[in-house]
Structures are given as structure tokens and as C-alpha cells.
């Protein structure tokens, strides 16, 4: 059980790390497009890792029902489809609105 809990903690910590990096990137990056790079990618993997951790925890501590891990698995699947699609939609909206991309050497906005 200690081993299982250790693995779960590792997954949760990994998810926490990537979500944190996404937030730092949102604050540090210079313009709209590069900020989307940070949030769009790190959130996907961060949430995925957290949910995998929860799945392992549930499998070993409440092994009588497999339904909850299966539902969590579908949650990961839907996040992995929806997150890049939403990122792309926001990106396209910004591009069509005419926001100029930041180039190397310019002031941050």
C-alpha cells in the first residue's frame, strides 16, 4: 500500500508541477499566442497526470468497482480531444481579429 501511495503521490506531484509551470508561463510569456502555448499544453498533461493518479488510487483502495476508473479514463480521453481543439479555436479567433504576433526583440505586451 505504501508503494501504491508513493506512485499516486508521484503522479499528483507531476500533474501539480505541469499545472504550475503552465501558470508561470501564462504570467511570463510576452504575448497572447505564446501564453496559449503554455496553458494549452501544460494543462492537458497536468490534468491527465492528476487523473491517472486518482485512477491508480481508486483501483487499489476501492477495487470492488471498476466503473469509476473507467469513467476517469474517458475523462482523460475527452480532455485530450477538447483541450487542443479549444486552444486552436481561441488561437484562430485571435488571428482573425488581427492581433499581431510578438517577434524576437520586441517589448513584451
Amino acid at each position, binding site marked *: 500500500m505504501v508503494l501504491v501511495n508513493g506512485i499516486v503521490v508521484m503522479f499528483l506531484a507531476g500533474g501539480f508541477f505541469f499545472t504550475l509551470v503552465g501558470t508561470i508561463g501564462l504570467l*511570463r510569456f510576452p504575448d497572447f499566442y505564446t501564453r496559449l*502555448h503554455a496553458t494549452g*499544453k501544460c494543462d*492537458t498533461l497536468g490534468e491527465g497526470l492528476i487523473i491517472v493518479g486518482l485512477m491508480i488510487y481508486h483501483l487499489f483502495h476501492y477495487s470492488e468497482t471498476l466503473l469509476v476508473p*473507467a*469513467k476517469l479514463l474517458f475523462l482523460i480521453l475527452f480532455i485530450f480531444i477538447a483541450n487542443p481543439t479549444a486552444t486552436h479555436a481561441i*488561437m484562430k479567433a485571435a488571428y482573425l481579429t488581427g492581433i499581431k504576433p510578438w517577434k524576437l526583440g520586441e517589448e513584451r505586451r
Partner: protein
Amino acid sequence: MEVGGGEKMKMGGKGFGILLTFCLMFLFWILLSGLFDAFHLISGVICCAIVALISHDLLVKGKGKKILLKSFRLILYIPWELGQIVLANIDVAYRVLHPKMPIDPRIIEFETSLRGDFALVTLANSITLTPGTITISVEPEKGKYWVHAIAKEPADALLVDQTMQKKVADVYMEW
């Protein structure tokens, strides 16, 4: 599995589409409800039948050929994609946490041989999930992509190596 799909395809694309949609919907219903008494199963069958009849053409296009083979190839493609996602996140984490922030954003465009809806969406989402690139816009007629890259190396990976385009073209057999 693929052979069975091929035989059903000969019987008529529309019926196969409805059947496939119904089976997927019903599996999902059972998964979400988790109750196996008569009332829940029967209401599930009725709901799934209605949904499958109305919206089967959203999931399975009538002329979709070799759909089971393509799904199988897509499942083989997903592990590689997952590895790329992890690499993408480490890459972004490095760029975020590096004191000098080594970024050099640019917009690139390139054409591919892909034409099918699923192929275009798969490549667009794969580009968004892999290191340092996000799809801005897609033009389905020419298979043309506009991509925002965060630095030079990820842009070159798409423009010069074209590993991802080749892999997606292999999955959907659209060279």
C-alpha cells in the same frame, strides 16, 4: 475484426453506420450508468436507438471506407502521440523556467496530402499537442495548415522532417 467490418460494409454503408453508432452509444450508456436492471437497460436501448438514427452520419460518414482498419491504426498511433505530448510539456516547461526565456515565435504554413475530415482534425490536434506548435487555421481543400511555432526547432520539425504528417497519412492511408 477488420474482416467482419469489411463484410458489413458490403451490406450497405448506412446500416453499418447506424449499427456502429448504436453499439458505441450503448457501451457508453452501460459504462456511465453501471446499473444492469431491466428498466435502465431498456431505456438505454431506446435512447441509443433514437440518437443513432438521428445522428449516425456525424460519427460515420456514409462513404467511409475501411473504418475499422483506420481505427485500429489510430490506436497504434496514440502511444507515439502520448510520448510526443510528454516531450512537448518538458519543452514548454524548459522555456518557461529558463531565466532568458529562449523563444522566437513565428508563423509557418505548409501543405499536406490529407483531405478527409478525421485526418485533418487528427493532424491539427496532434500539432497543437506536440512540442512548441499550435494550429491556427486549416484549409481543407488544399490540406493547407497555418501553424504558430514558439521557436525555430519545432518549426523545422514540421517543415523539414515532416514526421508527423507522414505518420497521420499512414494512419488514414491518404498519401
